[in-house]
């Protein structure tokens, strides 16, 4: 039995050095080199200090989203959760609550939203795409109802600095130690923990995961809660970054997050994906947009490039796979002939 497996797997391992997450990192390096030649400002600390906060929320939410898509589910309501937890944070602060407590409760709202999604998907048994389209409207609706046509803006300067300024004279925004911590945490969670192995197992085959005594439903609920919690954190950071809590914060962010995850090499069919690939994709997106803006290229071209990269992210591995199969066939033939 073991022999059969090694025979099937080994040739593929040997001839597949370029999975999509590796390609995306190579692309990122090429972009950084090419960009610095094209525009002297591009690869400077100052540019990165301005660019990094723009992708902070996407990075934060893309991490749990990666796990969620690996497990074969999806969450379209993340941007609405960002909006709702931001509104909660803002309104509670305005009512005179301690700002730490208000921020904490904002994150808690995110956790609750995630739990609602998780329970509806795993316990009630509804499709995650349909459920989260509904909660996308529901959560945004709550944010709209709570905030109406006003906005909360008078946050203390030390807090808004956290959302926007850098650490001392370095290029690293103050939010990034937190964000990097979460990236490492999710990296470990995904690739080095039992939790991660179980997630991959569920994504590859729910039936098989059940036989391996994995509690699939609870696992999925936890994944949704994680996604909600990180959206909550992103919601608070978003409010601080633009120093405004409004009902329409981060409207439409869900598609950017999903696009980032897919561009990072996560398979929409589940079971495949890496955290570093997604993190690289987020930086790639951010740098590419910054470069386009620096070169005064119309944002329309960036929109078109985003779409092209997305289709490329599924098309290129497919073509590479075809080439790979062709090569394997040839090698097998050679082996046969040699015999």
């Amino acid at each position, binding site marked *: 039995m073991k022999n059969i497996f090694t025979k099937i797997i080994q040739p593929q391992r040997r001839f597949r050095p370029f999975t999509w997450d590796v390609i995306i990192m190579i692309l990122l390096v090429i972009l950084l080199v090419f960009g610095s030649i094209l525009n002297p400002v591009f690869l400077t600390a100052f540019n990165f200090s301005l660019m990094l906060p723009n992708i902070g929320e996407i990075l934060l939410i893309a991490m749990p989203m990666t796990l969620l898509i690996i497990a074969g589910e999806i969450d379209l309501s993340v941007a609405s959760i960002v909006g709702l937890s931001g509104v909660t944070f803002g309104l509670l602060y305005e009512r005179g609550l301690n700002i730490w407590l208000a921020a904490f409760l904002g994150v808690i709202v995110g956790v609750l939203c995630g739990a609602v999604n998780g329970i509806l998907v795993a316990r009630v048994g509804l499709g995650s795409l349909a459920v989260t389209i*509904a909660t996308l*409207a529901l959560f945004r609706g709550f944010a709209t109802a709570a905030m109406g046509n006003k906005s909360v803006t008078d946050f203390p300067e030390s807090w808004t600095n956290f959302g926007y300024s850098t650490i001392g004279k370095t290029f690293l925004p103050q939010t990034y130690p937190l964000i990097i911590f979460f990236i490492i945490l999710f990296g470990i969670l995904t690739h080095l923990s039992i939790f991660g192995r179980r997630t991959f197992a569920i994504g590859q085959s729910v039936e098989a995961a059940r036989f391996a005594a994995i509690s699939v439903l609870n696992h999925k609920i936890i994944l949704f809660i994680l996604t909600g919690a990180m959206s909550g954190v992103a919601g608070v950071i978003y409010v601080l970054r633009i120093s405004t809590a409004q009902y329409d914060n981060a409207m439409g962010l869900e598609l950017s997050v999903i696009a980032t995850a897919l561009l990072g090499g996560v398979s929409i069919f589940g079971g495949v994906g890496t955290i570093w690939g997604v993190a690289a994709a987020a930086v790639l997106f951010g740098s590419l947009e910054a470069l386009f803006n620096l070169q005064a290229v119309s944002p329309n071209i960036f929109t078109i490039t985003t779409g092209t990269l997305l289709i490329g992210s599924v098309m290129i591995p497919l073509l590479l796979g075809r080439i790979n199969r062709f090569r394997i066939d040839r090698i097998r033939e050679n082996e046969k002939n040699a015999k």
Partner: protein
Amino acid sequence: MIQKIAAFQTTNFKINAKTLLRRRESGILMVLVLVSVATTLINPRFISGYGLSDLLLNTSMVGCLAVGLTPVVIARHIDLSIASATGFSAFLTAHIIVGHGWGVVPAFFVGACVGAIIGAVNGVLVAGLRLPSLVVTLGALYIIRGIDYQFANNKQFTAEKLPTDLMHLSQDKIYGVPYLFCLVLLLALFGVWWMRFTRFGRDLYAIGSNPPAADIVGIKVFSRTFFAFVWCGTLAGIAGVMYLSIYAIVDSAAFLNQELIVVTAVVIGGVNIFGGLGTIVGALLGAVLLRVLIGALVALGVAQFWQQAINGLLLLIAIGIDRILSRRSETKIERIRDERKMEIS
């Protein structure tokens, strides 16, 4: 489990599935009537006068798109680029017909062609290369909108420039039913015939229920799926022309971010997002119900800031009911199947 039902329906739809599906659609119809009557009792203007024809006119676009999207979803795919295609077709059509001084019929022809081309590209990528439709059409959403932005470049067409007979088309009606809605009904009629009574359409149900099995039994998966995408694109193109006719204004942001509304309508209409289940009639009713709900909230004077939350809640309820109904039919089908087995043995 869902796959099992669908497979069952495709083979036995004349006997059992018909009644089951009818029940699903009559459920939506009941809710529809209930909401309409309740709203009318509180605010008679909801239906009376021009209320009803307004409602139908509002439904035309989403209805047309829902009819277009249904075969794609039944084949276990999705088209997220549908709203971008609608917007681009609206702008490009306006550009072409204004430039040539053309009227209504060429406008619809141009729109349908633009949409069909977009659908064909999606179709080749999804059906030909077998790429995941969610990723491909999400990419297409960005690409088409980007091209639209770039092409339109801050331009706008308003009633001033657009042909007047196209504007009048949205105002004309037969017995209170707007022409545009009649057009949607005609398209839906064709869709019903196609999906229900032709081999072509039944194949799509089979593909959606179990894609590998469809391959194995020799169904022409490529041509079926490809045509579903072309159909979806074409109807998106036609919806774009409707946009011109109804709103008499178009720029590059036309119908921006409306793709999920169309998916919502289809889901409310009982089309299963995992393929293999649902009907065109259901999807159309779903679109009507969605617009009626929005219209009802507005007509009842529900505070505007609450409308979206209520919409989301109602959608959740709709999905929930769908689940309960399908569970019930699952058990029923299993019972029938068991009885059959007993008979055979």
